[in-house]
Protein backbone atom coordinates (compact mmCIF):
# COMPACT_ATOMS: atom_id res chain seq x y z
CA UNK A 1 0.00 0.00 0.00
CA UNK A 2 2.86 2.36 0.73
CA UNK A 3 3.56 2.67 -2.99
CA UNK A 4 0.05 3.87 -3.75
CA UNK A 5 0.02 7.63 -4.25
CA UNK A 6 -1.60 9.86 -1.64
CA UNK A 7 -3.62 11.59 -4.34
CA UNK A 8 -4.51 10.33 -7.78
CA UNK A 9 -6.68 12.33 -10.14
CA UNK A 10 -7.61 11.44 -13.71
CA UNK A 11 -9.60 13.57 -16.10
CA UNK A 12 -11.12 15.72 -13.38
CA UNK A 13 -13.81 18.10 -14.65
CA UNK A 14 -16.00 20.48 -12.72
CA UNK A 15 -18.63 22.50 -14.54
CA UNK A 16 -20.79 25.25 -13.15
CA UNK A 17 -23.57 25.57 -15.64
CA UNK A 18 -21.91 25.98 -19.02
CA UNK A 19 -18.68 27.25 -17.48
CA UNK A 20 -16.01 24.78 -16.57
CA UNK A 21 -13.86 25.67 -13.58
CA UNK A 22 -11.77 22.54 -13.95
CA UNK A 23 -11.35 21.28 -17.50
CA UNK A 24 -9.61 17.92 -17.26
CA UNK A 25 -6.88 17.63 -14.67
CA UNK A 26 -4.53 14.71 -14.08
CA UNK A 27 -2.50 14.77 -10.92
CA UNK A 28 -0.52 12.37 -8.81
CA UNK A 29 0.90 13.27 -5.41
CA UNK A 30 3.24 10.74 -3.87
CA UNK A 31 3.29 9.74 -0.24
CA UNK A 32 5.46 11.95 1.91
CA UNK A 33 5.98 14.76 -0.58
CA UNK A 34 5.02 18.42 -0.42
CA UNK A 35 3.20 19.28 -3.61
CA UNK A 36 2.44 22.92 -4.36
CA UNK A 37 -0.40 23.94 -6.64
CA UNK A 38 0.22 27.33 -8.21
CA UNK A 39 -2.09 29.40 -10.31
CA UNK A 40 -3.78 32.76 -10.61
CA UNK A 41 -7.11 33.46 -8.94
CA UNK A 42 -9.94 31.72 -10.75
CA UNK A 43 -7.59 29.17 -12.34
CA UNK A 44 -9.41 26.26 -10.72
CA UNK A 45 -7.03 25.73 -7.82
CA UNK A 46 -9.51 26.02 -4.99
CA UNK A 47 -12.17 24.07 -6.86
CA UNK A 48 -9.72 21.24 -7.43
CA UNK A 49 -8.59 21.18 -3.83
CA UNK A 50 -12.15 21.35 -2.51
CA UNK A 51 -13.06 18.33 -4.62
CA UNK A 52 -10.09 16.47 -3.13
CA UNK A 53 -11.20 17.51 0.36
CA UNK A 54 -14.73 16.24 -0.24
CA UNK A 55 -16.40 19.66 -0.13
CA UNK A 56 -17.51 19.59 -3.75
CA UNK A 57 -18.51 16.88 -6.15
CA UNK A 58 -16.74 16.44 -9.45
CA UNK A 59 -18.68 16.63 -12.69
CA UNK A 60 -16.50 13.95 -14.26
CA UNK A 61 -13.25 12.13 -13.71
CA UNK A 62 -11.70 9.81 -11.21
CA UNK A 63 -10.46 11.03 -7.86
CA UNK A 64 -8.69 8.93 -5.26
CA UNK A 65 -7.42 10.48 -2.05
CA UNK A 66 -5.63 7.96 0.17
CA UNK A 67 -7.22 5.35 -2.07
CA UNK A 68 -10.70 6.66 -1.42
CA UNK A 69 -13.31 8.67 -3.33
CA UNK A 70 -13.80 11.88 -1.31
CA UNK A 71 -17.41 12.20 -2.48
CA UNK A 72 -18.39 9.07 -0.51
CA UNK A 73 -21.14 9.84 1.95
CA UNK A 74 -21.97 8.34 5.33
CA UNK A 75 -19.88 6.28 7.69
CA UNK A 76 -17.11 5.43 5.23
CA UNK A 77 -16.66 9.12 4.41
CA UNK A 78 -16.52 9.89 8.10
CA UNK A 79 -13.79 7.27 8.63
CA UNK A 80 -11.79 8.65 5.75
CA UNK A 81 -11.82 12.11 7.35
CA UNK A 82 -9.86 10.60 10.24
CA UNK A 83 -6.92 10.32 7.87
CA UNK A 84 -6.88 13.80 6.36
CA UNK A 85 -6.34 17.24 7.82
CA UNK A 86 -7.72 20.40 6.26
CA UNK A 87 -6.30 23.82 6.96
CA UNK A 88 -8.96 26.21 5.73
CA UNK A 89 -8.61 29.65 4.26
CA UNK A 90 -9.81 32.62 6.33
CA UNK A 91 -12.27 31.45 8.92
CA UNK A 92 -13.40 33.31 12.02
CA UNK A 93 -15.13 30.55 13.95
CA UNK A 94 -14.72 29.60 17.61
CA UNK A 95 -14.07 33.25 18.52
CA UNK A 96 -15.26 32.89 22.11
CA UNK A 97 -13.29 29.76 22.93
CA UNK A 98 -9.71 29.61 24.10
CA UNK A 99 -6.95 28.05 22.03
CA UNK A 100 -6.74 25.09 24.40
CA UNK A 101 -10.51 24.56 24.49
CA UNK A 102 -10.78 24.61 20.72
CA UNK A 103 -7.93 22.21 20.05
CA UNK A 104 -8.90 19.83 22.88
CA UNK A 105 -12.45 19.73 21.59
CA UNK A 106 -11.43 18.90 18.03
CA UNK A 107 -9.12 16.17 19.34
CA UNK A 108 -12.26 14.32 20.43
CA UNK A 109 -13.43 13.90 16.86
CA UNK A 110 -10.54 11.66 15.83
CA UNK A 111 -9.72 8.01 16.42
CA UNK A 112 -6.07 8.63 17.18
CA UNK A 113 -5.56 12.28 18.04
CA UNK A 114 -2.14 13.70 18.74
CA UNK A 115 -1.22 15.03 22.12
CA UNK A 116 -2.93 18.42 22.47
CA UNK A 117 -0.09 20.12 24.31
CA UNK A 118 2.49 18.81 21.89
CA UNK A 119 0.52 20.17 18.95
CA UNK A 120 0.17 23.53 20.66
CA UNK A 121 3.90 23.75 21.20
CA UNK A 122 4.64 22.59 17.63
CA UNK A 123 2.59 25.41 16.17
CA UNK A 124 4.12 27.83 18.68
CA UNK A 125 0.99 28.86 20.56
CA UNK A 126 2.13 27.91 24.09
CA UNK A 127 1.93 31.48 25.25
CA UNK A 128 -1.55 31.90 23.81
CA UNK A 129 -2.96 28.69 25.22
CA UNK A 130 -5.63 30.40 27.35
CA UNK A 131 -6.25 33.34 25.02
CA UNK A 132 -9.60 33.65 23.32
CA UNK A 133 -9.44 32.90 19.63
CA UNK A 134 -10.81 36.36 18.81
CA UNK A 135 -7.75 37.90 20.47
CA UNK A 136 -5.24 36.12 18.22
CA UNK A 137 -3.32 37.95 15.50
CA UNK A 138 -3.68 36.83 11.89
CA UNK A 139 -0.56 34.70 12.06
CA UNK A 140 -1.55 33.12 15.35
CA UNK A 141 -4.97 32.38 13.95
CA UNK A 142 -3.39 30.51 11.02
CA UNK A 143 -1.29 28.55 13.48
CA UNK A 144 -4.47 27.55 15.25
CA UNK A 145 -5.91 26.50 11.88
CA UNK A 146 -2.86 24.33 11.33
CA UNK A 147 -3.17 22.88 14.84
CA UNK A 148 -6.79 21.93 14.08
CA UNK A 149 -5.69 20.48 10.75
CA UNK A 150 -3.06 18.21 12.28
CA UNK A 151 -4.65 17.27 15.61
CA UNK A 152 -6.04 14.03 14.16
CA UNK A 153 -2.60 12.68 13.05
CA UNK A 154 -3.50 13.02 9.37
CA UNK A 155 -1.61 11.13 6.69
CA UNK A 156 -2.42 13.92 4.24
CA UNK A 157 -2.69 17.65 5.00
CA UNK A 158 -4.34 20.22 2.78
CA UNK A 159 -2.95 23.73 3.21
CA UNK A 160 -4.86 26.39 1.35
CA UNK A 161 -2.85 29.61 1.01
CA UNK A 162 -1.52 29.26 4.54
CA UNK A 163 0.63 32.38 4.80
CA UNK A 164 -1.51 35.03 3.12
CA UNK A 165 -1.15 38.22 5.12
CA UNK A 166 1.90 37.11 7.09
CA UNK A 167 4.90 39.30 7.75
CA UNK A 168 8.20 37.86 6.44
CA UNK A 169 9.32 36.63 9.83
CA UNK A 170 6.04 34.86 10.53
CA UNK A 171 6.24 33.22 7.12
CA UNK A 172 9.73 31.86 7.76
CA UNK A 173 8.73 30.31 11.04
CA UNK A 174 5.57 28.97 9.44
CA UNK A 175 7.68 27.28 6.77
CA UNK A 176 9.71 25.62 9.49
CA UNK A 177 6.49 24.22 10.89
CA UNK A 178 5.53 22.80 7.48
CA UNK A 179 8.97 21.23 7.10
CA UNK A 180 8.58 19.68 10.52
CA UNK A 181 5.26 18.13 9.49
CA UNK A 182 6.86 16.71 6.39
CA UNK A 183 9.72 15.25 8.42
CA UNK A 184 7.13 13.53 10.56
CA UNK A 185 5.94 11.72 7.46
CA UNK A 186 2.87 13.69 6.37
CA UNK A 187 2.03 14.30 2.74
CA UNK A 188 1.13 17.92 2.10
CA UNK A 189 -0.84 19.52 -0.69
CA UNK A 190 -0.22 23.24 -0.62
CA UNK A 191 -1.81 26.00 -2.65
CA UNK A 192 -0.11 29.34 -2.64
CA UNK A 193 0.28 32.65 -4.42
CA UNK A 194 3.86 33.01 -3.27
CA UNK A 195 6.48 31.60 -5.55
CA UNK A 196 9.19 31.80 -2.92
CA UNK A 197 6.98 29.73 -0.68
CA UNK A 198 6.64 27.03 -3.31
CA UNK A 199 10.38 27.17 -3.89
CA UNK A 200 11.20 26.91 -0.19
CA UNK A 201 8.82 24.08 0.61
CA UNK A 202 7.70 22.07 -2.36
CA UNK A 203 9.25 18.92 -3.74
CA UNK A 204 7.19 19.43 -6.87
CA UNK A 205 4.95 22.18 -8.16
CA UNK A 206 2.03 22.04 -10.53
CA UNK A 207 0.94 25.15 -12.40
CA UNK A 208 -2.74 25.39 -13.11
CA UNK A 209 -4.41 27.87 -15.42
CA UNK A 210 -7.84 28.03 -17.01
CA UNK A 211 -8.80 24.80 -15.32
CA UNK A 212 -5.87 22.79 -16.70
CA UNK A 213 -2.47 21.75 -15.43
CA UNK A 214 0.16 23.41 -17.61
CA UNK A 215 3.18 21.75 -16.14
CA UNK A 216 4.34 19.67 -13.22
CA UNK A 217 7.99 19.83 -12.28
CA UNK A 218 10.39 20.46 -9.41
CA UNK A 219 10.79 24.13 -8.50
CA UNK A 220 14.31 23.98 -10.00
CA UNK A 221 13.25 22.70 -13.40
CA UNK A 222 9.84 24.30 -13.89
CA UNK A 223 9.45 25.93 -17.28
CA UNK A 224 12.94 24.75 -18.32
CA UNK A 225 14.38 27.05 -15.70
CA UNK A 226 17.50 24.96 -15.24
CA UNK A 227 18.32 25.23 -18.96
CA UNK A 228 17.16 28.78 -19.47
CA UNK A 229 19.86 31.29 -20.37
CA UNK A 230 21.31 33.09 -17.38
CA UNK A 231 22.03 36.79 -17.28
CA UNK A 232 25.65 37.79 -16.59
CA UNK A 233 26.12 41.44 -15.55
CA UNK A 234 29.26 43.44 -14.81
CA UNK A 235 30.52 46.99 -14.72
CA UNK A 236 32.72 48.19 -17.55
CA UNK A 237 33.71 51.75 -18.44
CA UNK A 238 31.25 53.09 -15.87
CA UNK A 239 28.20 51.31 -17.37
CA UNK A 240 26.52 48.04 -16.43
CA UNK A 241 26.77 45.51 -19.24
CA UNK A 242 24.89 42.28 -19.54
CA UNK A 243 24.71 39.24 -21.76
CA UNK A 244 22.38 36.26 -21.83
CA UNK A 245 24.16 32.94 -21.97
CA UNK A 246 23.40 29.24 -21.86
CA UNK A 247 26.86 28.74 -20.43
CA UNK A 248 27.41 31.47 -17.87
CA UNK A 249 30.48 29.74 -16.41
CA UNK A 250 32.34 30.13 -19.68
CA UNK A 251 31.32 33.80 -19.89
CA UNK A 252 32.57 34.44 -16.38
CA UNK A 253 35.87 32.69 -17.17
CA UNK A 254 36.30 34.84 -20.30
CA UNK A 255 35.52 38.02 -18.37
CA UNK A 256 37.86 37.04 -15.58
CA UNK A 257 40.66 36.66 -18.09
CA UNK A 258 39.87 40.01 -19.65
CA UNK A 259 39.80 41.87 -16.32
CA UNK A 260 42.76 39.93 -15.06
CA UNK A 261 41.01 38.44 -12.04
CA UNK A 262 38.37 40.58 -10.40
CA UNK A 263 35.26 41.29 -12.49
CA UNK A 264 33.70 44.55 -11.24
CA UNK A 265 30.19 44.11 -9.77
CA UNK A 266 29.74 40.65 -11.21
CA UNK A 267 26.25 39.10 -11.01
CA UNK A 268 24.94 35.87 -12.52
CA UNK A 269 21.16 35.71 -12.51
CA UNK A 270 19.08 32.67 -13.29
CA UNK A 271 15.46 33.47 -14.07
CA UNK A 272 13.66 33.11 -10.75
CA UNK A 273 10.60 30.96 -10.30
CA UNK A 274 8.36 33.98 -10.36
CA UNK A 275 9.56 35.12 -13.77
CA UNK A 276 9.17 31.63 -15.18
CA UNK A 277 5.74 31.31 -13.68
CA UNK A 278 4.49 34.67 -14.92
CA UNK A 279 5.73 33.81 -18.37
CA UNK A 280 3.93 30.48 -18.25
CA UNK A 281 0.57 31.83 -17.25
CA UNK A 282 0.97 34.87 -19.49
CA UNK A 283 1.64 32.78 -22.55
CA UNK A 284 -1.53 30.86 -22.13
CA UNK A 285 -3.88 33.79 -21.69
Amino acid at each position, binding site marked *: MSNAPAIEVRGLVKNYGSKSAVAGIDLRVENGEIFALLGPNGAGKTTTVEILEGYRNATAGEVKVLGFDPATKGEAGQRW*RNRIGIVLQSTSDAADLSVLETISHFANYYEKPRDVNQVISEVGLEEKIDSKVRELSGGQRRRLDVALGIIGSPELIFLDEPTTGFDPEARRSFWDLIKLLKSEGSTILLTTHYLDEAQALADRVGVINNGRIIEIATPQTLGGRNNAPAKVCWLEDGVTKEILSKDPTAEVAKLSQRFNGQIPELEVLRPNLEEIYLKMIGELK
Partner: protein
Amino acid sequence: MNLINETIRIGLLRSKLELKQFLRQRESLVFTLFFPVILLFIFGSVFQDTIAPGVTFSQYFVAGMVASGLVNTGFQQLAITIPMERDDGTLKRLRGTPMSVSSYFIGKALLVTFLMIIQTALLLFFGTALFGLNLPTDVTSWWTFTWLIILGSACSTVLGIAFSVVPKTGRGASAVVSPIVIILQFFSGVFFVFTSLPTWMQQFAALFPLKWLTQGMRSVFLPDDFASQEVVGNWEIGRTALVLSIWLIVGVILAVKTFKWGRE
Protein backbone atom coordinates in the same frame (compact mmCIF):
# COMPACT_ATOMS: atom_id res chain seq x y z
CA MET B 1 -16.08 1.31 17.48
CA ASN B 2 -19.76 1.70 18.09
CA LEU B 3 -20.82 4.46 15.75
CA ILE B 4 -24.04 5.36 17.55
CA ASN B 5 -22.33 5.69 20.93
CA GLU B 6 -19.62 7.74 19.29
CA THR B 7 -22.19 10.03 17.64
CA ILE B 8 -23.92 10.59 20.98
CA ARG B 9 -20.65 11.08 22.84
CA ILE B 10 -19.52 13.75 20.38
CA GLY B 11 -23.01 15.26 20.43
CA LEU B 12 -22.77 15.68 24.21
CA LEU B 13 -19.33 17.24 23.89
CA ARG B 14 -20.68 19.58 21.24
CA SER B 15 -23.56 20.65 23.45
CA LYS B 16 -21.08 21.54 26.19
CA LEU B 17 -19.04 23.56 23.73
CA GLU B 18 -22.13 25.24 22.25
CA LEU B 19 -23.31 26.21 25.71
CA LYS B 20 -19.89 27.54 26.67
CA GLN B 21 -19.82 29.70 23.54
CA PHE B 22 -23.38 30.86 24.10
CA LEU B 23 -22.77 31.89 27.69
CA ARG B 24 -19.74 33.92 26.61
CA GLN B 25 -21.72 36.01 24.16
CA ARG B 26 -23.25 38.49 26.52
CA GLU B 27 -25.66 40.03 24.00
CA SER B 28 -27.26 36.75 23.04
CA LEU B 29 -27.30 35.66 26.65
CA VAL B 30 -29.25 38.70 27.74
CA PHE B 31 -31.45 38.82 24.67
CA THR B 32 -32.43 35.16 24.70
CA LEU B 33 -32.68 34.45 28.41
CA PHE B 34 -33.85 37.70 29.93
CA PHE B 35 -35.90 39.26 27.15
CA PRO B 36 -39.09 37.35 28.08
CA VAL B 37 -38.67 38.49 31.67
CA ILE B 38 -38.24 42.08 30.53
CA LEU B 39 -41.36 41.79 28.37
CA LEU B 40 -43.24 40.33 31.29
CA PHE B 41 -42.14 43.26 33.38
CA ILE B 42 -43.34 45.79 30.79
CA PHE B 43 -46.65 44.10 29.97
CA GLY B 44 -47.29 43.20 33.59
CA SER B 45 -46.81 46.82 34.63
CA VAL B 46 -48.94 48.28 31.84
CA PHE B 47 -51.87 45.86 31.85
CA GLN B 48 -52.90 45.32 35.42
CA ASP B 49 -56.56 44.47 34.90
CA THR B 50 -58.06 41.04 35.03
CA ILE B 51 -59.33 39.53 31.79
CA ALA B 52 -61.69 37.09 33.53
CA PRO B 53 -62.59 36.49 37.16
CA GLY B 54 -59.37 35.48 38.92
CA VAL B 55 -57.26 35.71 35.74
CA THR B 56 -54.82 38.61 35.51
CA PHE B 57 -53.30 39.65 32.22
CA SER B 58 -49.90 38.60 33.60
CA GLN B 59 -51.20 35.10 34.12
CA TYR B 60 -52.41 35.01 30.51
CA PHE B 61 -49.23 36.60 29.26
CA VAL B 62 -46.90 34.15 31.03
CA ALA B 63 -48.58 31.25 29.22
CA GLY B 64 -47.84 33.00 25.93
CA MET B 65 -44.29 33.88 26.88
CA VAL B 66 -43.42 30.33 27.93
CA ALA B 67 -44.73 29.17 24.56
CA SER B 68 -42.91 31.81 22.58
CA GLY B 69 -39.76 31.09 24.59
CA LEU B 70 -39.77 27.73 22.84
CA VAL B 71 -39.83 29.53 19.51
CA ASN B 72 -37.12 32.00 20.54
CA THR B 73 -34.55 29.58 21.91
CA GLY B 74 -35.13 27.02 19.19
CA PHE B 75 -36.41 28.30 15.89
CA GLN B 76 -35.27 31.90 16.11
CA GLN B 77 -31.89 31.25 17.71
CA LEU B 78 -30.94 28.41 15.35
CA ALA B 79 -32.26 30.03 12.18
CA ILE B 80 -30.03 33.02 12.98
CA THR B 81 -26.90 31.34 14.35
CA ILE B 82 -26.59 28.52 11.81
CA PRO B 83 -26.30 30.92 8.84
CA MET B 84 -23.69 32.81 10.87
CA GLU B 85 -21.81 29.56 11.42
CA ARG B 86 -22.03 28.92 7.70
CA ASP B 87 -20.43 32.31 7.05
CA ASP B 88 -17.68 32.25 9.66
CA GLY B 89 -16.35 28.83 8.66
CA THR B 90 -17.62 26.82 11.64
CA LEU B 91 -19.63 24.47 9.47
CA LYS B 92 -16.98 24.14 6.81
CA ARG B 93 -14.40 23.20 9.39
CA LEU B 94 -16.69 20.66 11.02
CA ARG B 95 -17.50 19.19 7.61
CA GLY B 96 -13.82 18.42 7.16
CA THR B 97 -13.60 16.35 10.35
CA PRO B 98 -14.92 12.87 11.15
CA MET B 99 -17.70 14.42 13.27
CA SER B 100 -21.13 13.36 11.96
CA VAL B 101 -23.95 15.75 11.20
CA SER B 102 -26.07 13.95 13.79
CA SER B 103 -23.63 14.96 16.52
CA TYR B 104 -23.97 18.55 15.38
CA PHE B 105 -27.78 18.31 15.58
CA ILE B 106 -27.61 16.68 19.02
CA GLY B 107 -25.39 19.52 20.23
CA LYS B 108 -27.88 22.09 18.97
CA ALA B 109 -30.91 20.28 20.39
CA LEU B 110 -29.34 20.01 23.84
CA LEU B 111 -28.33 23.65 23.77
CA VAL B 112 -31.92 24.63 22.96
CA THR B 113 -33.27 22.39 25.72
CA PHE B 114 -30.92 23.85 28.26
CA LEU B 115 -31.63 27.46 27.30
CA MET B 116 -35.32 26.82 27.35
CA ILE B 117 -35.25 25.35 30.84
CA ILE B 118 -33.35 28.35 32.17
CA GLN B 119 -35.56 30.80 30.33
CA THR B 120 -38.78 29.19 31.55
CA ALA B 121 -37.49 28.93 35.10
CA LEU B 122 -36.61 32.65 35.09
CA LEU B 123 -40.00 33.55 33.75
CA LEU B 124 -41.88 31.48 36.32
CA PHE B 125 -39.66 32.73 39.12
CA PHE B 126 -40.07 36.44 38.34
CA GLY B 127 -43.73 35.90 37.47
CA THR B 128 -44.53 34.46 40.88
CA ALA B 129 -42.21 36.81 42.74
CA LEU B 130 -43.34 40.08 41.15
CA PHE B 131 -46.66 39.63 39.36
CA GLY B 132 -48.60 37.22 41.52
CA LEU B 133 -48.41 34.41 38.97
CA ASN B 134 -50.23 31.28 40.16
CA LEU B 135 -48.44 28.08 39.31
CA PRO B 136 -50.59 25.03 38.59
CA THR B 137 -51.13 22.69 41.50
CA ASP B 138 -52.44 19.56 39.81
CA VAL B 139 -50.46 16.75 38.26
CA THR B 140 -52.36 16.85 34.95
CA SER B 141 -51.35 20.43 34.28
CA TRP B 142 -47.68 19.73 35.00
CA TRP B 143 -47.82 16.70 32.77
CA THR B 144 -49.28 18.81 29.94
CA PHE B 145 -46.61 21.43 30.64
CA THR B 146 -43.86 18.80 30.37
CA TRP B 147 -44.91 17.21 27.09
CA LEU B 148 -45.68 20.58 25.55
CA ILE B 149 -42.15 21.69 26.35
CA ILE B 150 -40.57 18.51 25.00
CA LEU B 151 -42.67 18.36 21.84
CA GLY B 152 -42.52 22.12 21.38
CA SER B 153 -38.77 22.41 21.70
CA ALA B 154 -38.19 19.41 19.42
CA CYS B 155 -40.44 21.03 16.85
CA SER B 156 -38.80 24.39 17.27
CA THR B 157 -35.28 22.92 16.95
CA VAL B 158 -35.87 21.00 13.74
CA LEU B 159 -37.77 23.88 12.15
CA GLY B 160 -34.92 26.24 13.10
CA ILE B 161 -32.39 23.94 11.45
CA ALA B 162 -34.64 23.61 8.39
CA PHE B 163 -35.19 27.36 8.14
CA SER B 164 -31.46 28.05 8.44
CA VAL B 165 -31.09 27.57 4.67
CA VAL B 166 -33.38 30.55 3.97
CA PRO B 167 -31.26 33.54 5.10
CA LYS B 168 -28.67 34.28 2.42
CA THR B 169 -26.10 35.60 4.88
CA GLY B 170 -25.45 35.33 8.58
CA ARG B 171 -25.59 39.06 8.95
CA GLY B 172 -29.00 39.32 7.35
CA ALA B 173 -30.43 36.31 9.16
CA SER B 174 -31.86 38.24 12.05
CA ALA B 175 -33.74 40.57 9.71
CA VAL B 176 -35.32 37.60 7.93
CA VAL B 177 -36.16 35.50 10.97
CA SER B 178 -37.13 37.95 13.71
CA PRO B 179 -40.12 39.58 11.92
CA ILE B 180 -41.59 36.14 11.25
CA VAL B 181 -41.37 35.29 14.92
CA ILE B 182 -42.80 38.62 16.05
CA ILE B 183 -45.72 38.43 13.63
CA LEU B 184 -46.47 34.88 14.75
CA GLN B 185 -46.40 36.06 18.36
CA PHE B 186 -48.96 38.79 17.63
CA PHE B 187 -51.17 36.45 15.60
CA SER B 188 -50.96 33.62 18.11
CA GLY B 189 -52.27 35.48 21.12
CA VAL B 190 -49.01 36.02 22.97
CA PHE B 191 -49.33 39.78 23.37
CA PHE B 192 -53.11 40.05 23.14
CA VAL B 193 -55.97 37.87 24.22
CA PHE B 194 -56.34 35.45 21.31
CA THR B 195 -60.13 35.64 21.11
CA SER B 196 -59.98 39.42 20.69
CA LEU B 197 -58.04 39.03 17.42
CA PRO B 198 -59.81 39.12 14.04
CA THR B 199 -60.92 35.72 12.80
CA TRP B 200 -58.63 35.70 9.77
CA MET B 201 -55.66 36.27 12.06
CA GLN B 202 -56.74 33.44 14.32
CA GLN B 203 -57.14 31.11 11.38
CA PHE B 204 -53.80 32.05 9.91
CA ALA B 205 -52.09 31.49 13.26
CA ALA B 206 -53.72 28.09 13.59
CA LEU B 207 -51.55 26.84 10.72
CA PHE B 208 -48.40 27.27 12.82
CA PRO B 209 -47.18 25.61 16.01
CA LEU B 210 -46.98 28.73 18.18
CA LYS B 211 -50.75 29.23 18.40
CA TRP B 212 -51.12 25.65 19.64
CA LEU B 213 -48.26 25.90 22.09
CA THR B 214 -49.72 29.12 23.49
CA GLN B 215 -53.16 27.62 23.83
CA GLY B 216 -51.69 24.50 25.43
CA MET B 217 -49.80 26.64 27.94
CA ARG B 218 -53.01 28.50 28.75
CA SER B 219 -54.55 25.15 29.69
CA VAL B 220 -51.66 24.78 32.11
CA PHE B 221 -51.65 28.25 33.66
CA LEU B 222 -55.29 29.35 33.50
CA PRO B 223 -58.21 27.94 35.47
CA ASP B 224 -60.10 25.08 33.82
CA ASP B 225 -63.28 27.07 33.39
CA PHE B 226 -61.41 29.60 31.25
CA ALA B 227 -61.53 26.97 28.51
CA SER B 228 -65.08 28.04 27.71
CA GLN B 229 -63.68 31.38 26.57
CA GLU B 230 -61.40 29.83 23.94
CA VAL B 231 -62.43 30.04 20.31
CA VAL B 232 -63.92 26.53 20.20
CA GLY B 233 -64.85 26.42 23.88
CA ASN B 234 -62.23 23.94 25.04
CA TRP B 235 -58.43 23.52 25.19
CA GLU B 236 -58.17 21.16 22.19
CA ILE B 237 -55.33 19.24 23.83
CA GLY B 238 -55.55 16.30 21.44
CA ARG B 239 -55.50 18.51 18.38
CA THR B 240 -52.54 20.46 19.80
CA ALA B 241 -50.54 17.25 20.14
CA LEU B 242 -51.51 16.28 16.61
CA VAL B 243 -50.56 19.61 15.02
CA LEU B 244 -47.23 19.74 16.84
CA SER B 245 -46.44 16.15 15.88
CA ILE B 246 -47.14 16.87 12.22
CA TRP B 247 -44.88 19.92 12.33
CA LEU B 248 -42.19 17.85 14.06
CA ILE B 249 -42.25 15.25 11.30
CA VAL B 250 -42.28 17.90 8.57
CA GLY B 251 -39.42 19.68 10.35
CA VAL B 252 -37.27 16.56 10.64
CA ILE B 253 -37.72 15.77 6.95
CA LEU B 254 -36.96 19.34 5.90
CA ALA B 255 -33.96 19.64 8.22
CA VAL B 256 -32.38 16.42 6.97
CA LYS B 257 -33.15 17.11 3.30
CA THR B 258 -32.19 20.75 3.15
CA PHE B 259 -29.33 21.14 5.63
CA LYS B 260 -26.29 22.68 3.97
CA TRP B 261 -22.74 22.79 5.27
CA GLY B 262 -21.68 25.44 2.81
CA ARG B 263 -23.02 27.87 0.27
CA GLU B 264 -22.25 25.96 -2.92
